[in-house]
Structures are given as C-alpha cells and as structure tokens.
C-alpha cells in the first residue's frame, strides 16, 4: 500500500515532501480562517491533513528505501545546515510524522459532527484554522533538525492548543481555568527548554541538532552543557506530562472539546516525548545521558511512579474522560520506563508503545466523543446500558479498552510484551512486575467502564439513545481495527519502532 501511494506522487513533489508536509497546512490554515462557514474550513482541513499524510507516507518510503534507514535532509530556503534551518527526517522522525498525520487525518474526518455540536457556528472556521496550526506545529516538531526551530514549532502547536482547550468553555466553564493552567505550565516548560538550548548554543555555537551532537562529544564535562541538559529534560518533561509535571493534563483533557481531546491525547504528549528522546539519545548521546545514571535515577522512577500512582487515580474517577486522562499519564510512564532501559530493545519498546497508545487513546476518545454527541454526558452513570443502544460505538470502545489493558491479540499486548522482554533482558525483572501490577489497575478502571456499558441497565431508559453518526463510526472503527491488526500482525509497527531505535543508537555511537 505504501508503494502504491508513493507511486502516485510525482517525483518533483516527493523531492520536496518535508517542506510540503508543513507548507500545505501552513498556507491552508489562513485560508480556512478566511472561510465564511465552518464546513468549508473543515473540507480544507481534510485536504491539508490528508496531503500531509501522503507526504509522510512518501517520506517513510524514502527513508525505508535504504537498508538501515536513509536520512532525508531538506535545506529550508536553500540555506545549508548548519547556517540555515534543516529539516531532517530519519527513521524515528518518519515514524512520528506518520503517526501524527494519520491521527490528524482521521481526527479531522471524525471531527465535524462533534465540532458542530460543541463549537458555535461563528467560531468554527477559526477553530479549524487553529487546529490546522496546531497540526502543523506538531508535524514541524517531528520534522525539524534545528533545536531552536523545534522550540518555535512546539510553541506554535502549544499556543493554538491553549485556544482549542479554552473553546470547551461553551460546554463547561472549567475549560477556562484548565486552559490558563495549561498555558502557565506549558510556557514555563517551553521557556526551560529554550534556556537549555541557549546553554548548548553558548557551549557549542550551533543550533543544528546533528551538529550539536558532534560538538557535544568534546564538551562532556562542560558545566553549561550539564545545566542545559537539566533544563531541557525538565522543559520537555513538562510538555510530555512526565509524572510529577503532569498536573495540567487531566483538566485540559477533561474539559476541552471532545475533538480536541482526541487529537491531543493521541499526538501532543507523543510529539513532546519524541523531542525528549531525540535530545536524550541523539543530541546528548548515550554516554552523556547515562553519565551519573540520569536516566535510571530520573526517568525510570518517574515512569514507575506514573504507572502506579496515576493508574490508582484513574480508578477513583467517576468521569470517564478523567479516567482516560489519568490513564494517559500512566501510559506515558510505560514509555518512559522503556526509554530509561537505554538499550535498543528498550527504546524500541517505548516507541512501539507510543504508537500503540496513540491508536488506543485515539479510538477511546473518539468513542467518547460519540457518546458526548448523542448522550451529552461522560460520567460512569451516563455510560450504563450504552452497549445495547449503541453497539457499534461501544464495541469499538471495548476493543480499544482491552487493548489498553493488554489482552492478547491486541496492540497493547504486543507492546507490553516487547517492554517486558526488554526489561528482562536488562535484568529488571521487578520492572515486569510493575508493568503487570499497573495492567491490573488498568483492568480495574477500564473494567468498571465496560461493566457499566454492557452489564448495567440504563438509569433513565426514557432518555433517547442512538448510535454515533457514520462520520464518527468510520474513523473509530479504522482505529479499532488497527488495534487488532497491530495485535495480530504487529510486524509493521514493531519494525518501524525497531528502525527508529536503531537509527538513534547509530547516531549515539557515532
């Protein structure tokens, strides 16, 4: 299928894929803002995200065309690195880009009924425009090879995210403090990151990440580099909702419009986590990251704390959105645990789980948006008996839920097995125990929801219930079937993750 899509794209366009991936949403976002009504803006967004998806597939094919993974370097404005801004696509970038664009495309298709219900008509065109800007910002983070450019794209996506979250106020006013809180935390995180980049620039005199990696080899014990490392770790940790820095996430997810929640849950923290991995393994390199066991003493305990503490918190929520939001933080813990192992297998497992979690949470929040649309409520009681009145929506929800728990033949199982294997190989058998324990908690919190959905009678049988519209069901089922497909035949995604991890480690050993 990749070959087929690639063969449709002319060579001229394929050569400029990295620029077009960002450029098409960039030029269509203002156009969407100028549209007289939301529907046109939505159609423009579908085109933009779909085009980006094709470009991401083309780049994936280009990267995979060479054994061991090619590196596409694109000089913006014809300025060669390291004077100019370079877009640098290797196996890891192409994987993240594919993930973001796929989720973005499906989210845009599914979004319309949800947006129509939750956003006022006058704001819809601007809403779609803000969404496109957020999308291009996330793609930019995943594509750029320049440390400061990464900050700019991170802020482009974050600032539009604050706006998108705040627009949930039409449904619940608590979206506003959530957005303000997210804005404070997010800006502090990005500022920390930029201070760190400043230290690196002071120590090396370059901002290009590949060049930084090379020059940092000679500056291992430089105090400025150490300070920069700390700032970048905390800054990106905030953006990625690393355990003690996750306070902004539950409220932001719970009160934003359902469409935004779905898109953010599946992409935003993932992209920030990608940036963290990129800095830890490519820019600083293995020797640096493991010096003084930073990873083992920071990332690993934080990951485990997230897995246990946030899973517990998820168990005690009565609102399904909040349950899923806390579960998201817990799942970030799995990824951090995988990354903190520091072996190729560990990082690959972490990245594999990153993709799977995006697919799982995407499906869960899509089904949730369907429930919000038809039933206007997201508490556990609202979910009672939905299995009978909306079987298609809820079956997809259930598939994603068991995948989140890690039942065999689902995506979650595959990545947990990969994570467990990597932990065992490294001798961290207790890590496997923690993964098991956390999965058990997942059984409890997802089980409560599933029990309400399938085995309880609806509280108010007179209230009208129906299936979610087709526009939601189709992307939802695509994601749900993707869960099973990855679970049964996980080779493709696991292969992507392996290539990505391998490219990181070749970079680190340079």
């Amino acid at each position, binding site marked *: 299928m990749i070959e087929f899509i690639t063969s449709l794209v002319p060579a001229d366009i394929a050569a400029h894929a990295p620029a077009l991936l960002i450029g098409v949403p960039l030029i269509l976002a203002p156009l969407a803002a100028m549209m007289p009504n939301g529907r046109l803006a939505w159609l423009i967004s579908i085109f933009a995200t779909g085009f980006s998806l094709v470009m991401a597939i083309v780049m994936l094919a280009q990267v995979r065309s060479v054994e061991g993974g090619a590196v596409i370097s694109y000089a913006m404005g014809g300025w060669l690195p390291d*004077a100019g801004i370079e877009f640098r696509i290797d196996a890891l970038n192409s994987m993240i880009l594919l993930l973001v664009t796929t989720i973005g495309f499906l989210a845009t298709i599914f979004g319309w009924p949800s947006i129509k219900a939750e956003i006022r008509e006058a704001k819809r065109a601007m809403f779609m425009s803000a969404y496109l800007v957020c999308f291009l910002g996330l793609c930019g983070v995943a594509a750029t090879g320049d440390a400061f450019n990464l900050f*700019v794209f991170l*802020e482009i996506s974050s600032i539009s995210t*604050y706006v998108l979250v705040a627009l949930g106020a039409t449904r619940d*006013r608590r979206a506003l*403090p959530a957005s303000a809180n997210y804005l404070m935390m997010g800006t502090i995180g990005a500022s920390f990151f930029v201070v760190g980049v400043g230290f690196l620039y002071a120590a090396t005199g370059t901002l290009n990440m590949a060049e930084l990696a090379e020059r940092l080899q000679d500056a291992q014990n430089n105090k400025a580099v150490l300070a920069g490392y700390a700032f970048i770790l905390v800054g990106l940790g905030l953006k990625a909702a690393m355990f003690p820095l996750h306070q902004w996430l539950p409220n932001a997810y719970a009160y934003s419009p359902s469409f935004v929640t779905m898109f953010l849950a599946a992409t935003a923290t993932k992209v920030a986590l990608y940036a963290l991995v990129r800095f830890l393994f490519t820019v600083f390199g293995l020797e640096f990251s493991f010096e003084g066991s930073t990873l083992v003493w920071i990332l690993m305990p934080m990951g485990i704390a997230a897995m246990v503490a946030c899973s517990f918190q998820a168990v005690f929520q009565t609102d399904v959105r909040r349950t899923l939001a806390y579960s998201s933080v817990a799942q970030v813990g799995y990824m951090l645990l995988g990354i903190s192992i520091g072996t190729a297998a560990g990082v690959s497992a972490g990245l594999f789980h990153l993709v799977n979690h995006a697919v799982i949470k995407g499906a869960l929040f899509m089904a949730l948006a369907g429930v919000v649309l038809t039933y206007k409520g997201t508490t556990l009681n609202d979910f009672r008996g939905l299995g009978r009145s909306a079987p298609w929506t809820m079956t997809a929800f259930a598939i994603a839920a068991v995948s989140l728990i890690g039942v065999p033949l689902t995506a979650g199982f595959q990545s947990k097995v990969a994570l467990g294997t990597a932990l065992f190989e490294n001798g961290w058998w207790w890590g496997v125990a923690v993964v098991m324990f956390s999965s058990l908690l997942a059984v409890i919190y997802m089980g409560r929801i599933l029990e309400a959905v399938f085995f309880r009678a609806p*509280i108010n049988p007179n209230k009208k219930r129906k299936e979610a519209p087709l526009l939601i069901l189709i992307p939802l089922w695509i994601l749900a079937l993707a869960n099973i497909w990855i679970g049964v035949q996980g080779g493709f995604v696991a292969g992507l993750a392996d290539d990505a991890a391998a490219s990181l480690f070749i970079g680190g050993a340079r």
Partner: protein
Amino acid sequence: MLEFILERGNYWAIIGLMMIGLYICFAATNLIKRLIGLGLFQTSIVLFYVSLSRVDGGTAPILFGADWKKAKGYGEESHGGDHAADASASAYDSAHAYTSGGLENVYSNPLPHVLMLTAIVVGVATLAVGLATIVRIREAYGTVETDEIREMDLDVAIAEAADEAEETQAANGTV
C-alpha cells in the same frame, strides 16, 4: 571569589529575574499577576540570549564602512556560481564573517538577536492568549483569583459527585 561573582554580573541579574518570575508564577493567586511573572521569566531569557551574543567592543551587527563595500562586492562575486549550494555556502561565509576576522569592525553576534525576536513574538502570542483566557474567566466566574475559582469548581465537583451517587443508588435500588 568576588571577582568571580562580579565577572558574571549579567548572569546573576538574569537568574535573579528568572527566579522572581518563577516565584510570582507559583505564588501569586491572581491570574494577571501570574502572567506578569511569566512575562518576567520570558524577558529574563531574552536578556540571557542577548548577553550571550555580546562581543567585546562589538557594535550592532550591521555592516558599515569598509565592511559594507566589501560585503557588497563579495555578494556579487558569489553569485557567479551556478549551483544553489555555492550561493548558500558563500552566504553562509558572509553570515559567519564576524568570526573569521576578515572584517574591519567588530560586531556582536546577530544570531541570538534574531532568535529572541522570534521568542518575543512567541511571548506576545502567549500573553495575548493568556489575557484573553483570563478575560473569559472573569466573565464566567466573576473573579480572577485562583483560590476562589478552585473553591467554586470544588463545589460544582462535590455537587456532581453527590448527584452521581444518588443516581447510582436509585438505579441499583430499582434494578
């Protein structure tokens, strides 16, 4: 020791500002004050980058005098090359000429200034979005004090939980 401290006066000032900004961000209950703290924090970062760019005795990085004429001639020469790579490579050289010492005058490093121009724009955008959110909070809650907002939200959450519990009980009783 004193010399060590005094030599780094700019960094002390920057770190001081940064910590004041962060402290306001965390300690203030008024949302506007928090945004002011955030602004202070971002400004200290601008100062940090600008002080990085300083070169002893350097002026603003705009070519003047003999340098300007030289750069003009250099630019025209460089476009003799056919390939895009040549042109950008020579542009790279002239952009980095301040380090090569081929210039008559000393200039400070322009790159951090440009970066900070971007960062200032990001800061302005953040501030505008933040203030707009606060205006909406003021309209929705009638206050901009975070503790009061939290209390109101807590009341709502407690009421919701009570409703939920009642509902559950009623449902379990009838089923």
